[in-house]
């Protein structure tokens, strides 16, 4: 008998549930083996960078929430740091200092955000591979975390809580008790999730030595976050270029050894444990440290409502803040890079003279680089493995497509 064998081209997505949103992946197959994976991205492209050019520095902030819609505060925080670097060299430096309480609150919520993101990443990964239960458990915890978001900012997801100059408002009195109660129970919940997965035979068969990303490839392709750490490099912006309170807290950076999907899973789980650790330290600090949660200067923040009726300067600042936003003072090109839960996120802004809008806003989304490496690491795997690999990459198309 004669067989004629030809390569098969298959569309994976954009409606496939394991495509994590809107990924159209054109797979070139030889039997079940993948020869080439060509991601077609941009189906969620909203033109954030262009839209930010139309807004004042204050108005552009909520767009950042909507980039990565599973870890919202991390992105607005990076933007806030960039805007603060614009002001730093001012004469009024002391009035521009971010108060320490604001920094601790930021750190606290950044770590809660990391939990929020990694819970999503790990449990939907498990769901893609076939384990439904951790997903149900994880989303219960996510709901509780989003409740904390709601209690500080009024919004479950798109908080706009961390703003240039500090945070929007102080945390409610009883929030710290609830977060520490959550923390205690969450450590157990994490153990349960790990009990289901880590030593599970099926989970290991699906993940170990699948999608191996060698360290050199990871660096070459600009991978960051758990993707890079899974391959064995200790590279965490919170350690190598610390911001906020990370320098003062005691925590560790987990790294993998092989760089396969299983390592990335383990890194994420361990990062969650470290986050619990940091959150506990931040809670401890917040109980002691009191004081303002915004800068003193009215150049960066809305003045307090109570001062409006009495202080001429507050009234002027109020008007300018809402009509013009922040006035750029420094000559620097504002730039900030932080460790978002998915990897290195940087905001690179070009300011323009005599106006109150950006000339160009560049957002470096970590997922964009992880998506690019998919072709390299999925070659010669089977089609079932592509689901595992995509899951371990923790893709969210809000940030990849911007």
């Amino acid at each position, binding site marked *: 008998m004669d067989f004629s064998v030809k390569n098969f081209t298959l569309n994976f997505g954009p409606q496939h549930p394991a495509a994590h949103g809107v990924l159209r992946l054109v797979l070139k197959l030889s039997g079940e083996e993948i020869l080439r994976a060509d991601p077609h*991205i*941009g189906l969620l*492209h909203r*033109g954030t*960078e*262009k*839209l930010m*050019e*139309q807004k004042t520095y204050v108005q552009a902030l909520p767009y950042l929430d909507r980039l990565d819609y599973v870890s919202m505060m991390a992105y607005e925080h990076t933007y806030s740091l960039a805007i603060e670097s614009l002001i730093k060299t001012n004469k009024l430096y002391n009035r521009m200092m971010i108060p320490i309480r604001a920094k601790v609150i930021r750190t606290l919520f950044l770590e809660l955000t990391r939990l929020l993101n990694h819970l999503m990443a790990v449990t939907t990964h498990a769901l893609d591979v076939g384990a439904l239960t951790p997903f149900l458990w994880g989303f219960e915890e996510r709901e509780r975390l989003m409740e904390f978001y709601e209690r500080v900012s009024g919004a479950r997801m798109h908080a706009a809580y961390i703003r240039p100059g500090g945070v929007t408002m102080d945390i409610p009195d009883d929030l710290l008790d609830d977060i520490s109660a959550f923390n205690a129970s969450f450590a157990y919940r994490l153990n349960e999730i790990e009990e289901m997965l880590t030593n599970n035979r099926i989970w290991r068969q699906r993940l170990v030595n699948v999608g191996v990303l060698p360290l050199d*490839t990871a*660096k*070459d*392709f*600009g991978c960051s976050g758990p993707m890079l750490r899974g391959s064995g*490099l200790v*590279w965490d912006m919170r350690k*190598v*270029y610390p911001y906020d309170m990370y320098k003062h807290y005691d925590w560790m950076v987990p790294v993998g050894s092989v760089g396969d999907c299983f390592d990335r899973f383990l890194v994420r789980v361990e990062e969650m444990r470290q986050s619990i650790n940091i959150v506990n330290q931040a809670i401890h600090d917040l109980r002691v440290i009191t004081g303002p949660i915004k800068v003193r200067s009215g150049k960066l923040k809305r003045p307090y409502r109570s001062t409006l009726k009495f202080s001429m300067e507050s009234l002027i600042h109020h008007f300018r803040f809402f009509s013009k936003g922040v006035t750029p003072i420094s000559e*620097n*090109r504002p*730039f900030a*890079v932080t460790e978002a839960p998915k990897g*290195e996120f*940087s905001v*690179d802004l*070009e300011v*323009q003279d*005599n*106006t*109150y*809008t950006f*000339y*160009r806003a*560049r957002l*470096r989304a970590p997922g*964009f*680089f992880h*998506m*690019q490496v998919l072709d*390299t690491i999925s070659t010669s795997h089977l089609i079932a493995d592509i689901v595992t690999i995509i899951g371990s990459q923790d893709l969210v198309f809000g940030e990849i*497509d*911007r």
Partner: protein
Amino acid sequence: MDKRCARLELTVANLFPKLLSSVFFDPLTVLVDRGSDFKNLIFLLKHSLLTKMFLNDFTASDHPYLVRRFELRYQLLSYLMNVRFSLQRRIYSRAYSVDNLFASANWLEREVWDMFGVIFIKNTKEIRRILTDYGFQGFPLRKDFPVTGFFQVRYSEKKKRLIYFPLKVAEVSSKIARNVDNTNFE
């Protein structure tokens, strides 16, 4: 960080005295004027200067009132030294691709082509649009591209597919109108 940056800056200044027209810290920024020097510099940065550097980010911005219209910004990162190095360069509309030097360059160049219409020559693997729709026309991040775009999309019951048709906007919002005045093209 600053000390290391200063050393790197010194090294670059010694190697290419004419190149360093302006330097800022954090990230260290170098403006490069001549194309051939640029190629040498980026090669050196990748291979021999202190440590291997990786292309961390690459972007452009549009200055339509200048002859050299586009400003390219390469951001290089050394994991070993923890140094970020940013190279800026103004071009007309074509640039040499750095695809053969950095694996991450391909998609970044595709994005810059897609958004700005900068053409990358030599060494490119493939340049096609990446973020915009199939068959999209125009370059959205150019300053002469209106934020509303030129076309709108709807599903046509007759043709049973999505169709593009020229944009009809009842009124341009005041915000957009104001912003047009703000970008004073001198």
